[in-house]
């Protein structure tokens, strides 16, 4: 019942904050958000599970499963539970939400109670996405995420917030349609043997090769078509080039805390779902088309990095670099090795923390300078040394500096994908070149904005940031270093959860 309690507490907090007066909403929301943080950490400490949630022979942590709705022959279950893939993401979600709430105190100055209420509502939906194991429940949460996100960008965003919010909503919603059709087609294709949307049941039936025809469509075609539909659906969320253009717009317009949530957690929904659905349920399709998927990954990495190099807005730089970093995840997933898929999952957490950190740091700078353009400022380091120090540390984390989480994740991915499939050596080597470009654009941006003589176009008084602005940055950088020094905090359970996928598909080391 712990997952239900976690979600319920978060939802109740959202309701309380929604009704609270504006003045206290921020502090109240932060304090209440510590409840799910504590809950998820307690769950982590008592976590006991083995295997992959979707495959046979697994025991899940905090699992509940009961029949909820029966419609004709089909039944919908309330099925939630955690394995080594979802546990780290749950922890990431709660921790990052709390820090994002703290980072909202300065930038959010109107309709606070609604803002903080929606943030907590968003958190509850995300927790649902990462814990649900029945497709229907999962899909409801998946769509529930969009609603607060749309409002958060559309109301508290920048000048072009409506465009960005609608673009994000419509784009991802169309993607949801594609994945919904894809998955439901698979369930119907399984015929009478599967009369539920329960993900483990469906996954095991699909892996056992029980897929039949759906109308005139044969099983092989159906498999590929469903894979494509779901891949596209999730690729928009990740986002994979060429489905990425909503992301920079959304990031630029979204207020800082929303950017943190968007980059830190929402993008991981896409890769998490890819891992759960495409790569777990249809491994043969993924492996048969490994090169094609790897091309998507490599293009995302290099093209995203090149785009980041061309940007002049700090937030756009970080936004495009997210595209680049998420490309690594795809590369790791398609490797079908423990290091590759485990590294991909680890990268979800690592990138969640690091990109959250970067957006937060850019936000702190924006709070004082009121500009994000690289050309508008220089020499900030002499005015706000603490913020700049953390920014620098975060940027090096993003570049994959050893003993920080990003390096561990990328290293695992490279180790896993090198030689994992035909041509993977070249794909891996090409993707790894991303670590040079990322260093290029981050160092360039830092040199121009943070160092040199102090100048600022916007003529605001620049001083050190407030404690509650810097504190979450410090917490994040410490977490990044902690995970980088000892990846086993999460990597052990991740390996345990991805091992069945890799082992069953004959992936090597």
């Amino acid at each position, binding site marked *: 019942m712990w997952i239900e309690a976690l979600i319920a507490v978060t939802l109740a907090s959202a309701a309380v904050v929604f009704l609270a007066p504006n003045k206290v909403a921020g502090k109240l929301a932060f304090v209440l958000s510590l409840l799910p943080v504590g809950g998820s950490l307690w769950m982590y400490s008592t976590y006991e599970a083995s295997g992959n949630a979707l495959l046979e022979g697994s025991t899940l942590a905090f699992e509940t499963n009961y029949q909820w709705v029966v419609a004709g022959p089909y039944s919908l279950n309330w099925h939630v539970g955690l394995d080594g893939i979802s546990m780290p993401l749950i922890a990431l979600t709660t921790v990052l939400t709390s820090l994002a709430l703290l980072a909202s105190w300065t930038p959010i100055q109107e309709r606070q109670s609604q803002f903080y209420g929606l943030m907590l509502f968003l958190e509850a939906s995300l927790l649902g996405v990462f814990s649900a194991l029945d497709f229907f429940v999962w899909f409801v949460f998946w769509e529930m995420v969009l609603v607060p996100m749309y409002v958060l960008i559309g109301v508290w965003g920048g000048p072009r917030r409506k465009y960005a919010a609608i673009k994000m909503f419509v784009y991802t919603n169309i993607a949801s349609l594609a994945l919904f059709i894809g998955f439901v087609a698979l369930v119907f294709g399984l015929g009478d043997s599967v009369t539920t949307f329960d993900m483990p049941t469906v996954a095991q039936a699909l892996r056992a090769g029980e897929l039949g025809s759906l109308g005139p469509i044969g099983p092989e075609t159906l498999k590929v078509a469903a894979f494509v539909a779901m891949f596209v659906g999730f690729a928009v969320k990740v986002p994979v080039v060429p489905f990425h253009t909503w992301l920079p717009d959304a990031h630029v317009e979204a207020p800082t805390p929303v950017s943190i949530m968007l980059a830190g957690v929402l993008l991981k929904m896409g890769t998490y779902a890819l891992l759960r659905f495409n790569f777990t349920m249809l491994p043969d399709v993924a492996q048969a088309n490994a090169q094609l998927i790897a091309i998507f990954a490599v293009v995302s990495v290099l093209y995203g990095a090149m*785009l980041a*190099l061309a940007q002049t807005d700090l937030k756009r730089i970080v936004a495009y670099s997210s595209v680049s970093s998420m490309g690594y995840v795809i590369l790791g997933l398609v490797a079908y090795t423990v290091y590759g898929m485990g590294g991909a999952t680890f990268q979800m957490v690592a990138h969640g923390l690091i990109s959250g950190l970067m957006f937060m740091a850019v936000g702190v700078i924006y709070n004082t300078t009121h500009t994000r353009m690289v050309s508008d400022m220089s020499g900030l380091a002499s005015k706000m040394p603490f913020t700049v120090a953390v920014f620098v540390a975060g940027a090096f984390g993003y570049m994959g500096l050893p003993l920080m989480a990003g390096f561990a994740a990328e*290293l695992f991915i490279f180790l896993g994908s*090198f030689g994992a499939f035909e041509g993977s050596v070249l794909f891996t080597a090409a993707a790894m070149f991303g670590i040079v470009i990322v260093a*290029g654009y981050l160092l360039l941006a830092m040199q121009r904005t*943070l160092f040199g003589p102090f100048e600022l176009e916007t003529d605001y008084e620049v001083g050190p940031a407030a404690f509650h602005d810097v504190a979450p940055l410090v917490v994040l950088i410490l977490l990044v270093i902690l995970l980088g020094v000892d990846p086993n905090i999460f990597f052990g359970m991740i390996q345990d959860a991805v091992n069945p996928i890799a082992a069953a598909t004959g992936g090597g*080391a």
Partner: protein
Amino acid sequence: MAALPFELAPAIAALPFVSFLIALLVGAFAPRLLPKGGAIPGILATAGSLVLSVWAAVAVWNHPDGMYHDSITWVAGVGDAAFDLQFGILLDPLSTMMLVIVSLVAVLVHVFSLGYMNDEGETGLPRYYAGLGLFTASMLSFVFASNLLMAFMFFELVGLCSWLLIGFWFREPGPPSAAKKAFLVTRFGDYFFLVGVVGVFATFGTTAFVGSESFPILADQVLAGEGASVTTFLGLDPQAWFSVLGLLILGGVIGKSAQFPLHTWLPDAMEGPTPVSALIHAATMVAAGVYLVARIYGFYALLPQVMALIALVGGFTALFAATMGVVKREIKQVLAYSTISQYGYMMLGLGAGGYVAATFHLMTHAFFKALLFLGAGSVIIAMHHNENMWDMGGLKEKMPVTYYAFLSGSLALAGIVPFSGFWSKDEVLYEALVHGLESPILLAAYAMGLLAVFFTGFYTFRMVFLTFHGKPRTDTARDPHAVGWNVKVPLVVLGTLAAVAGLVNMVPVAEVTGIHLEFLHDWLDAGPEALTAHHYADLIPYASGEIGSPLLTVLLSAGVSLGLALSGAGAAWLLYDVPEPIRHTDRLGRVKTVLFNNYYQDEFQVWLANGVTLPLARVADKFDQGVIDGVVNGVSSVSLFSGGRIKRIQTGVVSNYAFLLTMGLVVLLVFIGVTGGWF
């Protein structure tokens, strides 16, 4: 249970790390509590490291295995054929020697910094000492790393520290830019290194340096056809694939050790404080690349093509950088190019099969180049931070301690007998010669290295004469700033070492007299069998030739290189040891312009970045905004447009709706009628 110094081995790196934490945290929250801005904890920590390193070296010498190795699993592999990632400590003669060098230079640089930074009233000292502490910790960890992955990780971390320290004066425009360039260029090399590390894992399943399951030994067994089988990729046979791996790792070496074509960052790195230049950009970090090759020499020795390439790159870099050093105006620039050139010699030595020779040069160079930089730092203090040699002159009388120490370093650098640089450089050239007699490529590399000796002698003494001899050319030079004990002590220590360190391995004397003087050979032969000098000597793919007799070859080699060094120094003496030296290099005309602009290498690389990569990025951005996002926006425009047309049916006039309703009913009736067969 390991003996005591080995138990304490992690502390060698941990002590400077603690000093980093102290400088960082106390410096940030309670700067007043920090004595000397963090220098005292730094000095104590590095001195502790030095003591422990020496103790460890002695213990290694006395240990029956000649080494100590211990590792912990960082990340355990899961599943079939998975490999563990490990952190380990490997103390053997090579690594303990390097540990002693690094910690010794680090102590001296910390002491020197008291004079260069504290006494000059710099701000941000905790940041400076934190950087030094972190650097020392990372560098020491790199040195005792027992596997390639750990080596790579700390290799990158020293890069970070280099960035932090080059950009120490971040309020000025120059240092941040130089720091960025240094990190980026070395990162480019590290990219290949990382691919190499991953490739070694995928091929051998381990990156350990030592033990029966270490990758050099596995590679040896595979190539010898003895059992061990490995996975190779890209359809290459083991020999070719190992060469690819060797070249990939070499990428990192070339970046870090500033070899052609990735040498351009090092001269720019002189923007950092001079003690940093001494510690990082001369004596230790730049040595990391060369040290890495020496560390996995058992692997490189199996790959003749890669070895030849290392020798060629080294020989070429030695000559190439030396020619640029001839025309520089700033004292630190001359030293920077000489550093590149000297690392070229080490690469030449390694590539030519002279493992001991290159290691020897690595050691002597660390002493005399740290000395020269610190000496230059002393001069810079005296000159109120003016680095232009043409503004100096006549400093000999004003600062004798600096002068004689600097002279000792210069004699070593130029390779004048009996200073340390002579012995080591001569041994490198000797190895290149004897192996080159049987291999034209090595001979070409040797020729370039030999030619560079002349230039080295010339630019070294041009620097000495311009700085210390003649008449003072500016008011500052007439009345230089005095330097304190904290500057002089490191200079004296290093000056002595630069003079005498060569005595540990006087090969030519040993050859001639038959007296056993090759102590470094013995030292490097004391380790475990697979890491010893004689094992490497068996592995190297070269035959040795000789001119006349072995004795004649030794004497000839030593004589030629000494003669060239002396003639270079003599030329400088003739031209520049006059009261009012003139700019003789102007006579080179356009050649000087080319040399002064570093063969336009920097321009080329800047063009690659600004002229190719950035426009490419902008094109990509245009493409992204125009085409990809254009399609997305196009889809929405089409829906909006068609919606805008279709909505016109909604006129708002009730009669129209009624009409449509009626018509709809009629059409429906007719349709049902026709299909239902009413008519």
